[in-house]
């Protein structure tokens, strides 16, 4: 009897145990699924982010052009036949473009029609004509075939971002303009080609003429200043802290300081630059020089921390061997430790520079947020940076600027990926396990 009771107890506890085990295993699977979901969520976020921007931005690499026959009338360009540059500069090239369009569409007569048809062509067409005439004044009086940029509205239509089926009042292009454009297209005068202007020109109010050339140059200057300042200063600081500094309160303070600086919000560095570099020392506003200095202060802790870690990983035996051969402490570091640590230092510095390239907020504070048409020629000229250009364009209401913003973002991402890739390559190629 008693035996039976025991076994039924055991059977019961066995069942309970199995149940508990199953529950535990279910919990295990669930937990693992949460972890996997978290990783997948992060990956999905990255894919959606880059995908959404790429889908919106790739079409900015193409531009729409109209092939027009334009007669460069002497009466319009240079009626007194002076041949002076300022006369050629001031001539009304728009009327030449209009005349050429009116030749294609003879029914265009009224004032409002003329204005409407001119909206098909970008204001950049007149600039293109002006440059053509200035480059070769002998063309005056002849008829030339020129490919002129289409206006942003037409460009959006060609790329399929503007829809024809919405009511006319909600469209930026009227039915008439659409009809004109269709006839141009039917004549084979509309073409699409690679948009090199996007990479070479400065900012513009006209989306079809705006480019990232000026902001790329601004970023390049700022980054150069950042590199020239933060790399030598950071490495020097790291050498002292890692190899020579005694362990005392002062060096502890420096260390805490560096770790804190690495976590200070970037906008605070912008406030520092504004208060100290601009207001106190009177540096020019909007200059990549100041931007580079602010970014250098921001990058400095990153460089120091990376350089210290790299020097720490060089084994003591190297130092001992050098000392044994009679090298002075400084010679040990400069001739042996530093070269061996260099790949690690470079990797850290490149990652720091990549972060500086993508940084926007401190540059807003020191006025590198400006409408810059001309490509800056020196670090003292007013400029913007690539991420600031993204910020500026993101504010523009025109549909065509969305495409530009996304494309500028893509260019920024390509640069960052290239820099990070270089860092990873350096790490893989030169990393040594001691």
């Amino acid at each position, binding site marked *: 009897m008693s035996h039976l009771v025991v076994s039924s107890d055991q059977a019961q506890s066995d069942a309970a145990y199995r149940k508990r085990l199953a529950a535990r295993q279910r919990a295990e699977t669930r937990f693992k699924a949460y972890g996997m979901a978290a990783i997948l969520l992060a990956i999905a976020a990255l894919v959606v*982010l880059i995908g959404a921007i790429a889908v919106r931005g790739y079409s900015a690499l193409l531009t729409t052009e109209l092939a027009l026959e334009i007669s460069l009338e002497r009466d319009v360009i240079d009626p007194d036949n002076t041949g002076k540059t300022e006369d050629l500069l001031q001539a009304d090239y728009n009327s030449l473009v209009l005349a050429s369009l009116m030749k294609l569409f003879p029914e265009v007569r009224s004032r409002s029609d003329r204005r409407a048809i001119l909206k098909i062509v970008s204001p950049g067409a007149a600039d293109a004509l002006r440059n053509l005439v200035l480059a070769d004044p002998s063309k005056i009086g002849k008829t030339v075939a020129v490919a002129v940029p289409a206006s942003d509205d037409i460009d959006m239509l060609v790329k399929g971002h503007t829809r024809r089926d919405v009511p006319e009042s909600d469209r930026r292009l009227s039915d008439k303009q659409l009809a004109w454009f269709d006839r141009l297209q039917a004549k084979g005068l509309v073409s699409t080609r690679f948009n090199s202007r996007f990479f070479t020109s400065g900012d513009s109010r006209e989306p079809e003429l705006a480019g990232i050339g000026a902001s790329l140059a601004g970023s390049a200057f700022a980054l150069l200043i950042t590199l020239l300042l933060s790399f030598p200063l950071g490495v020097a600081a790291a050498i002292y802290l890692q190899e020579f500094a005694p362990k005392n309160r002062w060096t502890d303070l420096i260390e805490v300081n560096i770790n804190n600086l690495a976590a200070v919000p970037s906008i605070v560095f912008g*406030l520092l630059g504004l208060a100290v570099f601009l207001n106190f020392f009177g540096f020019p506003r909007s200059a990549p020089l100041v931007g580079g200095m602010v970014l250098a202060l921001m990058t400095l802790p990153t460089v120091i921390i990376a350089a210290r870690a790299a020097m720490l990983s060089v084994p003591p035996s190297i130092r001992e061997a050098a000392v044994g051969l009679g090298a002075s402490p400084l010679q040990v570091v400069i001739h042996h430790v530093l070269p061996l640590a260099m790949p690690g230092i470079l990797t850290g510095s490149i990652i720091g520079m990549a972060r500086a390239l993508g940084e926007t907020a401190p540059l807003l504070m020191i006025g590198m947020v400006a409408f810059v048409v001309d490509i800056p020629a020196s670090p003292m000229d007013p400029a913007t940076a690539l991420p600031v250009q993204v910020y500026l364009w993101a504010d523009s209401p025109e549909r065509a600027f969305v495409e530009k913003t996304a494309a500028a973002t893509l260019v920024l991402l390509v640069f960052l990926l290239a820099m*990070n890739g270089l860092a990873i390559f350096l790490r893989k190629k030169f990393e040594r396990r001691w």
Partner: protein
Amino acid sequence: MNALTLFTAIVLLSVAGFYVGRSRSLRVSGSAKELHSLPSYYGMYAALWAGIPAIVIFVLWFAMEPFLVRELVISALPSDKQALQPDRLGLLYNDIRNLAAGGAISTNADASMRGAADHYLALRSTGLWALAALALATGAAGLAFARSRIAPALRARPSVERVIKVLLILCSTLAVFVTIGIVLSLIFESIRFFEKVSIFEFLFGLHWSPQTALRADQVGSSGAFGAVPVFAGTLLITMIAMLVAAPVGLMSAIYMSEYATPRVRGFAKPVLEILAGIPTVVFGFFAALIVGPYIRRLGESLGLSVASESALAAGLVMGVMIIPFVSSLSDDVINAVPQTMRDGSYAMGATKSETVKKVIVPAALPGIVGALLLAVSRAIGETMIVVMAAGLAANLTANPFEAVTTVTVQIVTLLVGDQEFDSAKTLAAFALGLVLFCVTLVLNVVALRVVQKYREEYE
């Protein structure tokens, strides 16, 4: 002639000094063997003597020049302008400088202003030429002195190494000076702000509308600087961001360190690194262009009224931005938990998830808390996402569907495009910056302490 050319000239002089010193050392000794140090150290010796005094003069001049020129320009102004209040005088001087730079100014440029601007330009150019002469003469003198001292018995290497070591020390203290610079500049401008607006009104006031009247009789723009709505908005967005980043970041760290096969880790880790490397302006663009409108449409289809610049959109995207930050920091602390603790738990028959929940996370808790604190500090200081995707109006609300504003948004809107640094409006930005700096500093110090202490425990 500008500062950059002068600096280049000094550097060139120093480089020339190197070659002079090296060849001199070889000439005064018969062969390199008789020298105390290697010839290049004699070169360095001469280069340092040529370069350092000149650069010291150069730096000193640029630290003093603004004040000197200012004093001289102001003392040459007509007496009625000299008698102005200090802050008005500051504005006037700014105008003179802008006039000299060819920019637009706020007051009419009369003859005396133009004269002052010309005076300013003349002073600066004379000053630069005088500096050039002085610095280069000092450099040449230093070079000549070093050259005369070079002899086989001169202990060039120890002297050079001493100087280099001092330079290294100076570089390492730069970080401290940067911090001091931040603190001083923020405090200095904030004090000027608190002279206009009381500190209690700023910290505890419930109304934020930072416009100042252009004319005294203007209605409705007296300006209110109660920053509580701004702080509340920052807190709301930070909270939303942490609600996304903390669980996702932590779980992905746990999965990567405890479950993932090397292949999965080899794929997921770079992805997270790429996510960490994306600039915040890109996240901001993404939030403003895609997430904001999407959430708005979603809310409308559910019958909710959602602002297109809702706190939710900015917070969600910020959370995604912080995920890699949380996960890489937690990954470090989880990996620092000794393997023996895991083995002990498995030996007791615990499953992996039980080990994680009952052993690893409790053991790593201080480190995880530190990581989360650092993430909070990062979220509070984040600027571009909120500037592009959050609102400008300061609403005191806890509703994530409404638009709120943050400290960083206000700093940017108050300062961008404004060149006048005497109104309460622009100074308020520095007061907000001071609050931001103090809060993030406290968070960072606490977090770093916690993480460090924890690390020592297991090492």
